[in-house]
């Protein structure tokens, strides 16, 4: 089933200088139980997409889409508050620098208690309810791999490492038994030993609890091995999407190709084959394809903005993709051309 179904999501910002389109015709379909990656450089619009799904963008942003469904419900039929409340029940989001999302002056135990769903168990006497809830808190901490729950519950955020804080954020995120977890660069400031714990935890939640995960990150290297499908973003657009392994091994879009080349390590120490330049700002987008000025394959057609094209379970936005000639031939031979 499609848990999340977004077609042509556009996110615009009104500024004194005019309207800026930060995310343009972005599509994303996430299946129930999928571990999905969204990879893009800083400023490519990844976080905006995540926050738009949760209904967390302030009213200076304009969000519209041809389709914007979660679990069969049309999010565009809801007003802002309904959207936020609905997604607050169905999904949870975690962020970079978890400690800054925790209340510095409240003990961890209290904060998790507050995150528990407010469903009083009426069959319990009131003095039992409290201990019942405390048990739930320690059970949650166990689920995220925290054993010494007594000590952690009595601690304040500043007494704990970022890795522990992130685990606590995840514990609070899963308290409501959500169907989707949106993780916005949850590990980018951590060192490898902490990073791996968070990755493993997300993978475990995904497998054991069928929790769908949208993992937003700025590098392909780790996303490549931990996600089922991946969407690559550049300048507010999805430039390629598909099963992660295929995307990494046979990238279609030149931008993905460049990223994929970088992670294939070469034992010889030498120059990396990297695209020149940087991603343009939204105020100074080139005409036509947004990668145009940096693209090694750019040609005259590219002054026309390429549309998203679909090929079996993949999509791409380019006039001259890599790795496609053979594919087309194969598809044609087996009668599967679209």
């Amino acid at each position: 089933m499609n848990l999340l179904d977004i077609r042509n999501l556009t996110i615009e910002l009104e500024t004194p200088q005019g309207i800026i389109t930060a995310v343009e015709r972005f599509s994303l379909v996430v299946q129930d139980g999928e571990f999905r990656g969204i990879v893009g450089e800083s400023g490519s619009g990844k976080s905006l997409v995540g926050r738009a799904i949760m209904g967390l963008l302030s009213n200076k942003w304009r969000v519209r889409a041809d389709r914007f469904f979660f679990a069969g419900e049309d999010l565009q039929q809801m007003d802002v508050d309904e959207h936020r409340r609905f997604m607050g029940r169905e999904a949870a989001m975690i962020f970079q620098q978890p400690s800054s999302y925790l209340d510095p002056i409240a003990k961890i135990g209290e904060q998790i208690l507050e995150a528990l769903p407010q469903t009083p168990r009426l069959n319990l006497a009131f003095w039992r309810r409290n201990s019942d809830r405390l048990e739930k808190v320690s059970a949650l901490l166990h689920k995220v791999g925290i054993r010494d729950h007594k000590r952690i519950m009595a601690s304040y955020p500043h007494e704990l490492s970022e890795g522990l804080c992130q685990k606590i954020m995840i514990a609070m995120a899963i308290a409501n038994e959500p169907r989707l977890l949106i993780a916005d660069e949850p590990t980018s400031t951590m060192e490898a030993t902490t990073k791996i714990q968070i990755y493993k935890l997300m993978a475990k939640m995904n497998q054991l609890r069928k929790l769908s995960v949208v993992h937003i990150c700025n590098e392909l290297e780790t996303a490549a091995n931990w996600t089922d499908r991946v969407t690559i973003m550049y300048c507010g657009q999805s430039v390629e999407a598909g099963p992660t392994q295929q995307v990494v091994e046979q990238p279609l879009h030149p931008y993905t190709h460049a990223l994929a080349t970088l992670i294939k390590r070469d034992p010889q120490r030498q120059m990396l084959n990297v695209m020149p330049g940087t991603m343009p700002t939204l105020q100074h987008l080139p005409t036509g394809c947004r990668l145009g000025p940096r693209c090694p394959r750019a040609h005259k057609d590219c002054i026309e903005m390429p549309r998203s094209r679909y090929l079996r379970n993949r999509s791409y936005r380019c006039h001259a993709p890599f790795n496609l000639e053979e594919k087309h031939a194969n598809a044609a031979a087996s009668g599967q051309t679209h």
Partner: protein
Amino acid sequence: MQTPLLQVKHISKTYHNSKGWFRHETVEAIKSVSFDLKRAHTLAVIGEAGSGKSTLARILAGEMSPSSGDILLHGQNLNDTNQRQRCMDIRMIPQRPSLSLNPRLRVGMQILAPLVQHRSLTPSLRQQKLYATMRDVGLLEEHADYYPNMLSASQRLRVTLARAMIVDPEVLVFDQTLSAMDITMRAQLINLLTMLQQSRGMAYIMIGHQLSMIRHLADDVMVMQQGEVIEFRPTDEIFESPASEYTQRLIYAYNELVQGPSS
């Protein structure tokens, strides 16, 4: 035998923190650290938070002095050289390059600042030097007239790099500069640093936990724990057979991250 470019000999640093009126606490941030760095070589320094990496960086860059020990450049003790000269020889790239720039000053002026402080040059020579350095780090001459907010993050990083290089240093110290960088920017920087190392023979000390970057750039890796060096070996060896427990955990985690779950 050729003298190494940089020799660090038994440097230690003790901090005295006052704790109330009569008590104070001494923390040995680094304890008798020694190493050599050759010309055109790169040393990576890794270790847990609080293991003394940043203290080491700041001592090397001359921002503070060690409690004991010597630092020799070309065999000459830096305690004997004047502060000005040493600040030109070893330069540090800060943790957050963008924050270290003045938003109200044109980029060209900021790159030139260390030169103005340190050297007496004619304006035209200074201009030439500015443009040459900007070209070296991949900036355009016209960028000199820009303000920092008109540049992208990677261009701002290049500005801090140019500002460090304008005085022709021999050693650059990067303090975690590279950890928060996007993949293409990081790759561009790797190329730039490799090229500068080949053309100018600069030596780098990279502090931080960006293991992909370390693997690509560093010749040796030094591992610190509680102020001490617990491992110092060629990069390939560290990645293939890490010895200390800390390094093993780090490298295994890294391998698992880039190879995927081992199921």
